[in-house]
């Protein structure tokens, strides 16, 4: 009955009064992109997706083609240098992007869907269904994923990207399901869920339309997490040489580099681009995740801007417990001047 001052509603401006809803809705739609982190992440991801699509076409060389330039450092001819067979590493990276993106996205989508299906259902239904589904996800949680993936990929002779993605997806949903279940448990007794029930909504609709939208942040971060995990797994598998490597991916490049002891030979260019490409992809995804977090959670959103510029150009620190005072006060009453007039409240 009492409304805590920290609850979502009060943080959002204009509560208690009607602001122009249409303008508001528009602002809301673009706020996500306006978030600098999300925008950066999306831009980088966009480039990756683009490369995944057009990479093989724009690659200057056939990634398999051998040339006389054996083990050469980056040059104008070979931007990222060449391998011990004279293959162009830049082309390998470009061509390899597709497989990485395909595996990451398919596995991410699959694991996310599974974790939603199992986690949310278990959390919402409770009882025996919950026990059963939780047991299943616990079993999947305790099964060591990477060795399992190694084993399963070795079951088939030609593990295609899709298959690797499916396997990674199938083995990596459990954690997300667990988190979602816990969150659903706390959501399902929320009043608005009860209210939806009392309105007469069907169960699947309650799950899909009342609960799921409120899990967006978690689902998104779970998705991003699995994509990163899937990419890492794929690359790891290729790196340790267990997956079949019919197509190029960045792990394959690293595998060759490691197999030829590139670092010992001083061929840093063989290693560095693939590793950085992976790290950059991971960072982009993490940035998008931050963006989603701040977008969905109003607390983080206001938290994003801790220093704000006032109209007269000063910077003010926003912090809990010490509300900033904007106007410098004339002092009409005799006052104990504080020993240290520069507080964190108002600094110029």
């Amino acid at each position, binding site marked *: 009955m009492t409304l805590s001052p920290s609850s979502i509603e009060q943080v959002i401006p204009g509560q208690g009064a009607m602001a122009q809803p249409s303008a508001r809705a528009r602002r809301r739609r673009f706020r996500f992109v306006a978030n600098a982190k999300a925008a950066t992440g999306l831009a980088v991801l966009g480039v990756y997706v683009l490369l995944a699509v057009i990479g093989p076409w724009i690659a200057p060389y056939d990634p398999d083609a051998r040339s006389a330039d054996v083990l050469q450092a980056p040059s104008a001819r070979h931007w990222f240098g060449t391998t011990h067979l004279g293959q162009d590493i830049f082309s390998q990276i470009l061509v390899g992007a597709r497989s990485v993106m395909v595996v990451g996205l398919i596995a991410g989508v699959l694991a996310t869907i599974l974790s939603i299906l199992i986690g949310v259902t278990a959390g919402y239904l409770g009882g025996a269904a919950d026990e059963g589904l939780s047991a299943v996800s*616990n*079993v999947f949680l*305790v*099964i060591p994923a990477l*060795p399992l993936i190694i*084993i399963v990929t070795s079951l088939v002779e030609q593990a295609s990207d899709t298959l690797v993605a499916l396997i990674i997806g199938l083995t990596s949903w459990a954690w997300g399901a667990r988190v979602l279940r816990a969150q659903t448990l706390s959501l399902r007794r929320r009043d608005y869920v009860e209210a939806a029930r009392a309105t007469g909504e069907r169960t699947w609709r309650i799950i899909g339309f009342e609960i799921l939208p409120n899990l967006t942040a978690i689902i998104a971060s779970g998705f991003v997490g699995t994509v990163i995990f899937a990419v890492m797994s794929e690359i790891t598998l290729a790196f340790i040489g267990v997956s079949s490597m019919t197509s190029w991916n960045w792990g394959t490049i690293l595998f060759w580099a490691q197999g030829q002891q590139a*670092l010992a030979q001083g061929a840093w260019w063989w290693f*560095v681009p693939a590793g950085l490409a992976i*790290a950059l992809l991971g*960072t982009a995804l993490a940035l998008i995740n931050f963006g989603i977090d701040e977008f969905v959670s109003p607390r983080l959103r206001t938290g994003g801007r801790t220093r704000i510029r006032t109209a007269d150009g000063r910077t003010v620190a926003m912090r809990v417990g010490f509300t900033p005072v904007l106007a410098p006060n004339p002092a009409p009453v005799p006052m104990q001047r504080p020993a240290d007039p520069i507080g964190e409240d108002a600094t110029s």
Partner: protein
Amino acid sequence: MRFLLQRVAFYLFTAWAAITLNFFIPRMVPGDPVQSLISRNQGRISADAVASLRVLFGLDSDRSLWEQYVAYWGQLLRGDLGLSFTFFPAPVSEVIGSSLPWTVGLVGVTTIVSFLLGTALGVGAGWRRGSWIDGLLPATTFLSSIPYFWLGLVAIALFAGPGSFFPSSGGYEPGLVPAFDAYFIPSALQHSILPAATILVSSMSGWILSMRNMMVTVASEDYITVAHAKGLSERRVALSYAARNALLPNVSGFALSLGFIVGGTLLVEIVFSYPGLGFQLFQAVGAKDYPLMQGIFLIITISVLVANLLADVAYLLLDPRTRKS
């Protein structure tokens, strides 16, 4: 009582299911340990020798999978994990016993340190948003997005050249006998610095991030405002009020991560040739060493389950609220 029994039954079921899967999955793989042995000794084991190896590994008798499964449980219940193929006839328990301490030592310690350090930095970042610690986030995120092994390899290339203080592989200087003495311990420590640093760098930002977000959330709780209103010192509000509450979810995450210590370190151990369990598992998978694989899976399964239970209990202990459902 019923609740307790239910929990126990639940965990037992999970354990049973996981162990069963762990039994069957390795056996579904084509190829057998003998074949793997042959491939490792390309051409130097003759076809005639295969028979002797099959006899050696006890693969000559044709037992159905079901019989093997039953026998496996019989063994397990007697606390016998069987004999490893790769190190035949060393008992699996011995193989695990010799590599577990390394893993637990390296990864266990780094997990704890990374949790503590990450949490501390997360507290700082969350409390003082916009400060330098907060500014660290993009960097740590980047670091944590780098594949472990790549980071390890680069670390080796950069820091572990010949003549460097950092050894590039192994758990201790070859030739030393593991013992708690003034020769071995420093050597073991020296060998662990680089892998530990790698793990730290790439795992810490997860803790920083989750702690930071929890801090941000908690910092807007009423009781924090009240604590400020009470005029408590910044430190006390930040630590005793905000951090103490923000810690709760992180602690259960930490308990769970303890469970993954055993299994989650394959790559670091491979890259640094660290004589731990992850490396052993990798070898076992390659060698189709079912008994060893199962043994390691068992350890992983049990430790994850125990950690799970620990997380449950930790939450109960740390959070005095017995929440109404």
